[in-house]
């Protein structure tokens, strides 16, 4: 699944109702929709351009449904992703358990995918400290361990949302550059194996 009009595939993962769609909505449309919760069906795709230095990177964002029903399908959404934003709800400790599941899944299946942890609904926590159920430092330790980056965002106020996606685009830009320069040294046999592996696997 790769489109010609997209540079980097980014996938949103995480338990249902943590706010993946709201995060994308804030980033793409700069708005926060108030209303009854609507779960995503399957996945929604949006493309958005981000300015990185003097270059424009087009992020193709896959906003996946959190429901367990689509779990078996999720691979088609994150396959070949350059970045995964794994979300959890700062006010719901159970949502962080799902983060661990997704991280493991990504590490097993998509080793080249960069992982970004994103704690959502920060505005609730800022209003009322006692709402916080997921400790910042615990997550930071976990993030260090898996070499991921951590953001705490609020789609309602917009805080840290653009920063998150900006970082994703920048990292992509840097690594894309690295891959291009590194490509020459790669042994072809190695590449074939890689291809074979992914072919078999999916």
């Amino acid at each position, binding site marked *: *699944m*790769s*489109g*010609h009009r997209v540079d980097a595939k980014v996938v949103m993962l995480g338990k*249902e109702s943590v706010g993946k*769609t709201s995060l*994308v*909505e804030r980033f*793409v449309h700069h708005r926060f929709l108030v209303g009854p919760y*609507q*779960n*995503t*069906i*399957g*996945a*929604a*795709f*949006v493309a958005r351009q981000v300015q990185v230095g003097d270059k424009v990177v087009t992020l193709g*964002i896959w*906003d996946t*449904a*959190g*429901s*367990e*029903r*689509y779990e078996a*399908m999720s691979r*088609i959404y994150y396959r070949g992703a350059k970045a995964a934003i794994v979300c959890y709800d700062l006010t719901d400790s159970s949502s962080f358990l799902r983060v661990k599941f997704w991280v493991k899944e990504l590490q097993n299946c998509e080793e080249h995918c960069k992982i970004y942890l994103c704690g959502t609904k920060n505005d609730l926590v800022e209003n009322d400290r006692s709402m916080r159920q997921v400790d910042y430092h615990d997550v930071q330790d976990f993030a260090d361990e898996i070499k991921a980056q951590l953001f705490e965002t609020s789609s309602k106020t917009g805080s840290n949302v653009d920063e998150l996606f900006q970082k994703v685009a920048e990292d992509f830009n840097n690594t894309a550059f690295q891959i291009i320069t590194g490509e020459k040294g790669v042994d072809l046999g190695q590449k074939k194996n890689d291809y074979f592996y992914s072919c078999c696997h999916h």
Partner: protein
Amino acid sequence: MGTKTLRPTIPCFLFGCADLCDRARVPFTTRASKKSLRSMKGLCLTLEPATVMEADVHKMSVPLENGSLAPVDRLRSERSDSPTPGLVEGTEPGAGQDSAMFVHAQSFEDLTAEGEQGQEQEEVQEEEEGESERAPEFGELGDSEETQEPEGKEEQEQEERENEKEEEDQSGSGRAKEEDVNSEAWRRHRKHVFVLSEAGKPIYSRYGTEEALSSTMGVMMALVSFVEAEKNIIRSIHADGYKVVFLRKSPLVLVGVSRCRQSERELTRELLYIYYQIISLLTLTQLNHIFQHKQNYDLRRLLAGSEHLTDNLLRLLDRDPGLLLSAVTCLPLASSSRDVISSSLQAAKAKSLVFSILLAGSRLVTLVRKKDQFLHHMDLHLLFNLVGSSSSFREGEGWTPICLPKFNMAGFFHAHISYLEPASELCLILVSTDREDFFNLSDCKRRFLERLRRRSSYQALQEAVQAPSYPVSQVGIPELRHFVYKSKSSGLYTSPEIPVPYKCEEEEERLMDLYQYLHSRMHHPTRPLRSIYHCAEKENLLAYVTSGFELYLCFSPLGTKALAVSAVNKLLKWIRKEEDRLFILNPQTY
């Protein structure tokens, strides 16, 4: 089993249980309340031996009626404008020109004897059809019936409805999930639907939380398995004005409890819709797999977030004539514009594409299909429901697995769902067989849109979407308030906008109730009717079915029977004149 807590919820279950126990001399429930059981009269159980096969299996090759939408490949005679056009299927106004757009895609399940309960229903209706062909002249009514409604009943119903309304208002939100299941309000809902697993685990309840209902559902399952132990199947329980209908679709059991006038068969059909709704999210293969592995699996885990789809489907079943008539309505649009849209859609094809469907709200603009592949109206309604009950597809381009159960219960299609423009009502659904094909389909959409934008038809389309549907006054029949006309061979129906007296939700639902009532009378399994004239409290209705069409008319109380009868021909002529606009006459394939 907690007898005490259960009795107030659905008394007839217990009575039914105990009654059976008495007969079978099996201790089943506590006998304490036996006396009161005896006093309960008017309870009747419909049981049907499991072993009895339907006699007419060999008739299945004949195109099936109602809901079947079979293609009519026979040569059509000249489209007639005679006083009674369209008495034969395929020549009625609205019939497609080449072949039907949908078909009763007979899946394997449909062809096996025990597969579909609807099957036998359709056969009964088929007999009906034969009968009406023998007596095509409207007026010589062999099976016609005239009814005068006892006013008291209607009033009482009205009152109940109002009560319910009030209670709903009190409870606040539309999804009254937190409702107390022991409350009077909960019991007074007009139609309850429960879905449970064969282990008796709750999966879905229309009102109230599943947790609170687990013991009730346990009783339901006990009833089902109790009757099955004797090699029988429980179909329904009738008691105290309630109908309790059971639909056994292993590994699920669906139960409907209703106090409205719909027939048992209609209720079963609605339950079947709910069953298909669940299948469309999971596929039967996955469902079976799950329960084979773990009998007491809590299916709500997998269905999480889909409750509102089921809720909305139930609302549609109460309100949408399309689901009642097994038909789809089209956006009224000049045929020249529609043809341009169809051919643009046809041009934007991809290898894996099976169906391209353009919707305007819940109305069909056009449908292009792969050659030899037909979409069943039930599957289309499920797609309508999916799109209509979720704002999720407004966020971006949706890409979701979906099973079309009438096409194939075993596997997923992958649907690309997107709106043509952010705030537009026009939604494009591209159904593909390849889950990797998202960007291809995305490109199809882009090509379609580009092509369309260059043509004036796009403007016409947008105007048609904005414009209200047509008012009934266009037909020019005095006292006619509303009608629903279905062309059987094309599986499409047309209906004017809801007129003023029925504008509010309650009244609209009441009108639908009346149609539903007439529909179930017309399609009665043992005594089907060709026509019925019905004087209700606030309106007079006429329903008329031939092999070509199905027609329901609603007149003001001033309308007479003679007027109603003459209106049929006039209306048919009008529809014939307008059919280019109201129906899709040139269905396209890739």
